[in-house]
């Protein structure tokens, strides 16, 4: 921005220190992933990509990646559908009471995941959903709803209500108005919500630890077990791939937001 006060040296140093503090732990996995050693360490004699090769050749890693992907996709679908409908409903009704509904929908964000996980564990036991693909997808889908509600509500707040009136005034039914006017306008918000819901499921561990054991073995779960049981540098390679994937999704989100302007 022009016209603002220039940052002083102290402010600058603190800012950079914060950036480093946030980024260093993430970046450390990059050199570790190309180590030439057989255990988690920094490269000693040179760099090697064999851990990546290992990873991509390993049946169990690929299976985990695949499983995580499908669970994330399924739960994103649930979160987007439920979250979008909820946000639009609250927006249309527009009464005080809908604030309460919205607050309720944000609960999964507020309640500690571990508390939620204990509750789910009990319920899923009786519903026979433990250690099943469907159970994990449902759990991730429900906990992903807040992200969608937030982004879609934000998009709707910027939506000119006269556009809806205009559409109805020209004879459009509720469905037509939704399909042709409201959804296209809030699509970027839905996309953002979908990306966040996907990432949420993609790196979720606590719930999975509670409600899955053998059949469902997501990527974070596999990394967790790997860290505890052996110190295979493949883990660092996985981490790097995860980072690349997440950054790509966030970049996509940024691009979508930029297009909305």
């Amino acid at each position: 921005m022009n016209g603002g006060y220039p940052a002083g040296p102290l402010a600058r140093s603190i800012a950079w220190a914060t950036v480093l503090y946030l980024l260093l732990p993430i970046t450390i996995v990059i050199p570790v992933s190309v180590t030439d050693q057989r255990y988690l360490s920094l490269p000693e004699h040179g760099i090697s990509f064999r851990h990546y090769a290992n990873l991509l050749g390993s049946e169990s890693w690929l299976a985990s990646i695949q499983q995580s992907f499908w669970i994330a996709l399924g739960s994103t679908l649930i979160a987007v559908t439920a979250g979008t409908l909820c946000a639009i409903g609250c927006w249309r009704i527009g009464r005080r009471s809908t604030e309460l509904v919205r607050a309720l929908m944000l609960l999964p964000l507020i309640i500690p995941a571990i508390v939620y996980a204990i509750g789910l564990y009990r319920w899923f036991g009786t519903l026979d959903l433990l250690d099943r693909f469907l159970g994990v997808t449902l759990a991730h889908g429900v906990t992903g709803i807040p992200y969608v509600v937030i982004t879609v509500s934000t998009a709707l707040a910027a939506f000119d209500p006269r556009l809806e009136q205009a559409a109805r005034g020209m004879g459009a039914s509720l469905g037509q108005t939704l399909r042709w006017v409201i959804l296209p306008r809030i699509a970027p918000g839905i996309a953002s919500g979908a990306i966040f819901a996907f990432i949420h499921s993609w790196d979720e561990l606590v719930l999975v630890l509670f409600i899955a054991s053998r059949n469902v073995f997501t990527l974070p779960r596999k990394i967790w077990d790997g860290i505890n049981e052996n110190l295979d540098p493949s883990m660092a390679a996985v981490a790097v791939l995860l980072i690349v994937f997440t950054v790509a999704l966030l970049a996509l989100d940024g691009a979508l937001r930029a297009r909305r302007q």
Partner: protein
Amino acid sequence: MSAPVAHALELRGLSKRYGSFIAVDAVSLRVDRGQFLTLLGPSGSGKTTILMAIAGFVAPSEGAVLLDGADITGLSPERRDFGMVFQGYALFPHMTVAENVAFPLRVRGLSRADRDARVRGALDLVQLAAFAGRRPSQLSGGQQQRVALARALVFDPALLLLDEPLSALDKKLRAELQDELKALHRRVGRTFVNVTHDQEEALSLSDQVAILNHGRLVQMGAPEALYERPRTRFVADFLGKSNFLQGTVREVGATGMALQAGATRLVQAGAAHPAPGRPALLSLRPEKIGLLAGAETAENEVAGTIASWAYLGAGYSLSVRTADLGEIRVALPAWRAPIAPREGLPVRLGWAADAAVPVLEDADAA
């Protein structure tokens, strides 16, 4: 746009309350087929609320909306088939001009070929055919306004509702579009209901003007009738400029009355008058007052001095201070003006007995 079927619209005792606040208070009016009605009033007088009640977006607290005699008060907006131009246009930003105009046709399930033909026709009507592929954000305010008009007209609605369609435009463009709107109204032969707080727009466009204040219909009539024969001080003041002369009735005759204001005696033509001894209020338009030269006389005369003046191009606006009638505003044509205005100049004002009109104080009119 052939076979013009225009609708007659009627409001019967329409009221809208928000809690204890009365936004619209028992408004009854009628627009005949093919007429251009303007709702005119200051901000907050209930114009938009009435229009929204006609469109079906606001449910009246009391009263009814009738279309060709049929009660449509309970009909939902999407089933009323009215064209509407919203304040600020409400064009769909994610659609092109052509897609915007095609929207009402798409809703009605017309085939693509039919749609294209009618969209082209509507865009031709507002002279925007060359802009069909643009987005609303790439158009000027006046062009957006015309797109909104085309979109409201394309499905051939029997009734067109316009909420301050020209308010966002600069003066010159507004004048141009006023002419266009008027020509359009004549061409399509539909019933138009327009909302504005611009009195010039109301006068120049409408067949009928309904003047609103505090949610009430104060007076309705043809523009000339309203301007020449305002019923209340509010109408006279809101529509154009006016001087208000306060006096006491002295004599009443068959063709007029005599008033006394201090030492000044006024004669006023007209038949219906208050009884002698009662106070009376006259509205006198600045352009109906002349400057009297030398021995010239008029039915009403008053002397004063110029307190202030302004040059407006076509004329001067003088404010003349008088002993008995306060400050009187006079519109003086600038071309071959009989005097060169300056402050403190003594002048004599004169006007005919039928120049002013008696009006009611607003409190008495209620």
